[in-house]
């Protein structure tokens, strides 16, 4: 049976409400994409801000509760905490991006990622909202800084992924006008009443609307770069803090633990992105592809490593206790 995490005591009830709000804002952006009515995007953005505020409140509740029951740690230690926090930084990233750029179409992608993360947190049996005592290794003031900087990086990489998708769609249209014209024709030809076309018609329409509503390609290119370097900076900070912590707790700043290694691989991927800009013959399209691949690496580093490879960081595997 599916158990939904919704307890007022530990704050997960408010997170669940914010999850419903994120679904609502996603639907709003969905309607905006198809109707081009600014009212929908504005309403969705307001809902996103409210959901963000509610999550902030929920974090305070959860933090206080954690101290109240004697765990004495910020609520950032298990899978539920981390998924909720991931959604939180994604909303934060989107709000900031929306203030700097006019990114209504990005809302569709960002709320989708936040929604997926919240859904996993709320419904998945792997994630429970109960605050459980943590293993001794986590009992450290390093924890907060390590996790916050890494999640800021993850959020930035998620945003760069969303923008890169918009970029690639737009790039294809500009450099392959014939093909996209075909798609337009296909969209016009597609008769929603026929069974098969019902399946692909929305995607073609979505694709067409994305092209129409996205900012100019140069703006997207700049935004990808700026968001990635922000993420890269915080990824570097997070890795260094983690290394310092490991040096303090385990006796060495680097142990080639799978999570450590994958964080290095993520770092290398985005280092390639930054250096690729200086390489002749590497155009913006390749950069956008690296941003997309980079996010896949991030997701593997964040969740894949925990669910597939056991190691010192396996907080996501239920019942597993890492060494100390």
């Amino acid at each position, binding site marked *: 049976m599916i158990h939904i995490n919704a307890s007022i005591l530990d704050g997960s009830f408010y997170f669940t409400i914010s999850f419903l709000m994120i679904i609502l804002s996603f639907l709003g952006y969905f309607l905006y994409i198809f109707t081009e009515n600014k009212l929908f995007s504005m309403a969705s953005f307001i809902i996103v801000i409210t959901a963000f505020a509610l999550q902030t409140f929920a974090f305070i509740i959860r933090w206080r509760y954690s101290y109240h029951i004697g765990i004495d740690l910020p609520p950032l230690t298990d899978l539920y905490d981390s998924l909720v926090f991931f959604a939180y930084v994604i909303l934060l990233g989107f709000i900031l991006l929306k203030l700097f750029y006019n990114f209504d179409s990005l809302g569709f992608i960002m709320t989708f990622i936040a929604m997926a993360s919240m859904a996993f947190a709320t419904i998945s049996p792997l994630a429970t909202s109960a605050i459980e005592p*943590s293993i001794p290794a986590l009992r450290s003031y390093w924890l907060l800084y390590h996790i916050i900087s890494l999640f800021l990086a993850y959020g930035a990489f998620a945003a760069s992924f969303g923008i890169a998708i918009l970029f690639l769609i737009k790039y294809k249209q500009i450099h392959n006008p014939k093909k996209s014209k075909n798609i337009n024709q296909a969209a016009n030809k597609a008769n929603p009443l026929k069974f098969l076309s019902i399946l692909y018609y929305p995607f073609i329409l979505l694709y067409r609307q994305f092209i129409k509503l996205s900012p100019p390609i*140069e703006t997207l290119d700049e935004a990808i770069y700026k968001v990635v370097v*922000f993420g890269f900076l915080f990824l570097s900070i997070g890795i*260094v803090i983690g290394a310092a912590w490991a040096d303090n707790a385990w006796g060495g*700043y680097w142990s080639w633990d799978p999570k450590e290694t994958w964080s290095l691989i993520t770092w*290398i991927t985005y280092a390639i992105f930054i250096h690729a800009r200086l390489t002749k013959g590497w155009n913006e399209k390749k950069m956008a592809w690296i941003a997309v691949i980079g996010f896949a690496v991030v997701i593997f580093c964040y969740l894949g490593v925990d669910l597939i490879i056991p190691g010192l960081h396996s907080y996501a595997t239920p019942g597993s206790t890492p060494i*100390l």
Partner: protein
Amino acid sequence: MLSKLNKFFSSVKLAIILFILIAAVSIVGTIIDQGDTISQYKIIYGNNVFHILYWLGFLNIYNSWYFIGLAALLILTLIVSSANRTPKIIKEIINPDLSFDTALQKKRFKAQYITLQSSKNTEELLTFAEKAFRKNFGNPIKDIRNKKDNKTGSLFYSKNSIFRISPIIAHLGALVVLTGVILSAVLGYRSYTNIKVGQTIQHSYLLKNNKPVLLPFKIKLDNYVSKYYKDGMPKAYISTLTIMKKHIGVLTKTIRVNHPLTYDGITIYQASFGHYKPTAARILVLNLKLKNKKNKKALIYATPGKIYNSKINNIKFSFNFFKKPKKNSIPFYISIIKNNKKIGPPLIFQELPYKTKKGNMPLFFTKYNNNIAFIFAGVKTYYYSGVEITKNVDTDIVWIGSAILIFALFFSFFFNQQSLWIRVTPSEPSEKDKTNKIEILAIPHKKFASFYSMIDKNADEFKKNI
């Protein structure tokens, strides 16, 4: 030849290829468990696959020759490219090439080049230009006006040019980190040992190959405690250690996870805990004849098979296990020994209910001739504390390098160099209207759309005035 090598090692493409290869090798290291024992590998992969993996170096991949080789190549690239670029960039910062024409030719691909015509005179035009671009560029660093004819003039702006050095510093930071890593790999070590409560040790075993290391001091484990939450989750593992030098305790400190002890450049971390397989039973011997409580009982740690003196009527006994214990029966017994011979049948233990403050506990009890009673009071366990003993040389270098890297990344990402030229020249004398030609050349360090729109905005403001 040398210049070819130089060019090869300072290319960004080589760096990218090395990055990709290092990442690929690292992925292999996360798929195949590193540092297991040979027998474990043979169980997981089978004999043949094990030999292939061993030959490929996949079982200790981060110490393999090719991984170290790739890292060394990357370091070489880092050094060569930094050495090549640094003098050029420093020269450009200190002594920038202010020539309008060379800049236009060289940086055409990312420059914004605008030409305008105006009938206003040079002096006026330059004043307007200064006004229009002041908000984003500040004051011009070079202002050339030909005072003789008052017809030509140019302004040169440069913003954040000093921050062009930050990528170089970032690479320097990375080099410092790698230097620290190499130094600690060569001069330091990470080792591991278990210490029994009460035991003193002076050797530890290297994590990478189990070779013993002689420590410059002895370590005694005075005490070990595990603390638990109410639901049984471990909360803390605490060891009390004494550092001994020439049989004298010089420092006593408790260590737990996240709170190690450092002495003489060597750090001791709480890593694990456990107990050895019990080797002796705790046997409580009671003299049933004696009413005086003082000498009534004695506790003896009995190793199975060995003979102990009960100190009662000179009766000796041994604690033994049945070779083939019956089901649901107590598997051990006591033999009474007199003159080195076993007497009578084995004394079989009985289970009696026994109330303690903590609740009901079974009591294993047996007696001999109504003289002596033996109570089995559990087993003797030796707790040990697993500690990691590390000599971390030059970790400070790693932290300093990381700090340099992060600060330099911040400045190189968020402080971009921008240069701007504004040149006014009279039009060709052949043209009928005696107007002035204004050229605006703006060059960003990075091709950002926001930069070009900012220039367009400023240029529009300028246009309004002329």
